[in-house]
């Protein structure tokens, strides 16, 4: 696809809430990972499918029943990760991205989606793909908050 008419807008990043070993722990045997999230944030498990598990983390005051900005972990157990696979249309060229010892890639929205645009990380995991996303715009940017959470991610391949 050609360049978008409406380009993505990086929103305003709120102050990053600290994430440490003392932060609340989310652990999912089904997804095979644990990750710590900022105190005061909430998480909502997403609807499951036989090959899919997911969870979204929301900041204080956010309403998960609305199209709110969030940080989301999705595990698709059948969509095999392949760095040469095309990324979705209207996203940026993928860049290598490493979480712990897992090497994957990341890309961002290049066009302006409504109501939210995402920063995405894809990692090979459990024979499928672990997709980690953070709302990056157009209103608010939670990518710095995601970067604060990622060092606490403990995958169990």
């Amino acid at each position: 696809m050609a360049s978008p008419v409406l380009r993505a807008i990086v929103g305003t990043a709120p102050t990053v809430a600290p994430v440490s070993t003392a932060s609340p722990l989310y652990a999912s045997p089904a997804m095979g990972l644990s990750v710590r999230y900022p105190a005061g944030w909430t998480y909502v498990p997403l609807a499951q499918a036989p090959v899919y598990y997911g969870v979204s983390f929301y900041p204080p005051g956010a309403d998960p029943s609305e199209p709110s900005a969030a940080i989301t972990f999705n595990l698709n157990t059948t969509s095999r990760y392949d760095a040469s696979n095309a990324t979705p249309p209207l996203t940026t060229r993928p860049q290598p991205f490493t979480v712990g010892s897992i090497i994957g890639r990341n890309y961002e929205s290049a066009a302006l989606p409504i109501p939210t645009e995402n920063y995405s990380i894809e990692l090979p995991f459990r024979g499928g793909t672990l997709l980690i996303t953070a709302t990056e715009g157009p209103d608010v940017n939670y990518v710095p908050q995601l970067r604060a959470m990622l060092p606490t991610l403990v995958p169990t391949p």
Partner: protein
Amino acid sequence: MRTKLLSRPVAWCMAVLVSATFLPQPTASASPQGATLAPSTVPLIGQIFSPAEYTGKTMDSGLYDCLVASVAMDLQGLQQEGLLTPTMSDADRYSAVRHAFRSQTPDASSGLSADLAVALMPQLTANELVAAIRTDITADNWLPVLQQQLDAGYPVPVNINDWHKLAAGWGGSHPHTIVVTGLQGDQVLYNDPWNGKAVAPPQRWSMSDADFAAAWGYRGANGLMAPFIATTINRAGASLPPVALATPVAAPASPTPAATIIPTATAFATVTPKPVAKPGGLWVGPADGSTITQPALHLAAHAYPTNAGDPPIDHVNFTLWWPQIGLKTGPWALACTAKPPPSGDVFACDADIGKLGVPAGQLAVSFDAYDAAGNKHLAPNGERSISYAPPTPTPLPSIRAVDWNKVLRDDPDLIITGPVPCPVPVPVSVIYRGDPQVEGLVGTVFYGDIAGDGGEEAILPLGSAVCSPSGGDWSLLVYRMTPAGPRIAASLRTGLGLDLKILGGRLNVTYQIWLPGDTNFAPTGGTQKADYQLKDGRLVALSSQHVPPSASIMQRVPESFPLYQYLPYATSDFEVTSSEQGKRLQVKVKIADINKVKAGVEAWIRSHSVDPSTHTVDYVR
């Protein structure tokens, strides 16, 4: 112009073309004007749908699909007017538009771009309609632009940068898309797809021109978002004349569009089709209509260049579909990829459909052939239908129904140390052969799923020193039901004063710590709390917390335990856990360099004015 607008007749887009169906007119209770909304032939389609659908990457419930629902409403309005060949019901249209958008942006936690609407419109409407993003609308011309579109019969999807500014005053401040359906007096009429929680079904709304201009012209809280963005959908080939700038209307002034806009209305270049090589393919197996009873599925097909000189076949992807992964027209699961064989043209591979999560029932298999030049032929020989009928496992009996007195006495992993002459629920005392320190009287058995697999485990507290169904325990056994009966799945040594609960699928363990010199009923070591989950045959601590004793108790901590108040202590290299044996410490080593750990531990001890030689340290990995 303002006078003209006020004198215009009702100008909602359908009224001039078809006999308007005058629908019941709900009152928009949240509207600032309290307006009664106008009828329209643009149907109402709510963006939230249930159950959520699998996009091939994530699950979509419509939460971020305002653009999809708006486009679907727009197309159905045009269909009712005769500007689009009637082909679909409202529900089918929404489904078709949604699948088209989500096939391109399968991450359902992302919104959707108007650029996609432009790209997909020919496909969605069999080339009858085209979409364009309008970035030329301003506070000065927005009303005549809308009027021109509506007079010509075209509803207009528009971006609203903060939905709180709409008539409904939705909570939060999310960007949103709605469909403008008419202009009536000084009111703008629109359909709002949001039906998340405040209203169901979605409603028609109205706002005064001034309020609507304020909402549409708002640039977002960060001031970065372009105002007055619309996605017009028109007949292909039809061109509406440019709108002359009107006399400014009573709307807030708007700054120029944000710098992030590329001021062009053409989103995607036209691609001239060129002949491409299309690989050929022919099924080998499985046979159509066959039944498999095991998860191993062997797949094979001939794949070959169709014409002499076409590129060789690079690989064949075998794909699977079953109802639970969504519509058949959506993405299929990749079963396996076959590389070129040493000779011949039969590409074959084996899939484990158990690992793919395929349930028993009907499934469809297909294959796609790819050549070395990147050309592909999807399903060159169609799909085949097969049945998956794995043997039905016999349901296990409930672990709650077992006779524990008998189970424990018959369990070869236990040593029975004698009957207990008191009225406790399970009157035996045992020693676990796997860990002889897990022993004692059996307390009250309780049940819950601590493995997260839907089956229940039984938790047996051990160690009561007296004939009491609770209290005084210091270890536990976990039993699981198996086809051979209840079997020990894990054990755990804890401490005295054990308190056990199952909370949220986790085994919550709380016990008190006795220090040297403590008397019965007066522990001074504080409390240890931990949450465990059963995984791979062992209890895995998901969290652990040491709650120090009160200050009055601390004053009684004997001098024989000088580091007590600093425990536990952890670094990235090691973890010193609390000890109940005074000057004997246990250190969990996290790195390979043991000398570095020892140096670190000794430095830590010295930092509290304690001589390391006074302590014995056990290093464990």
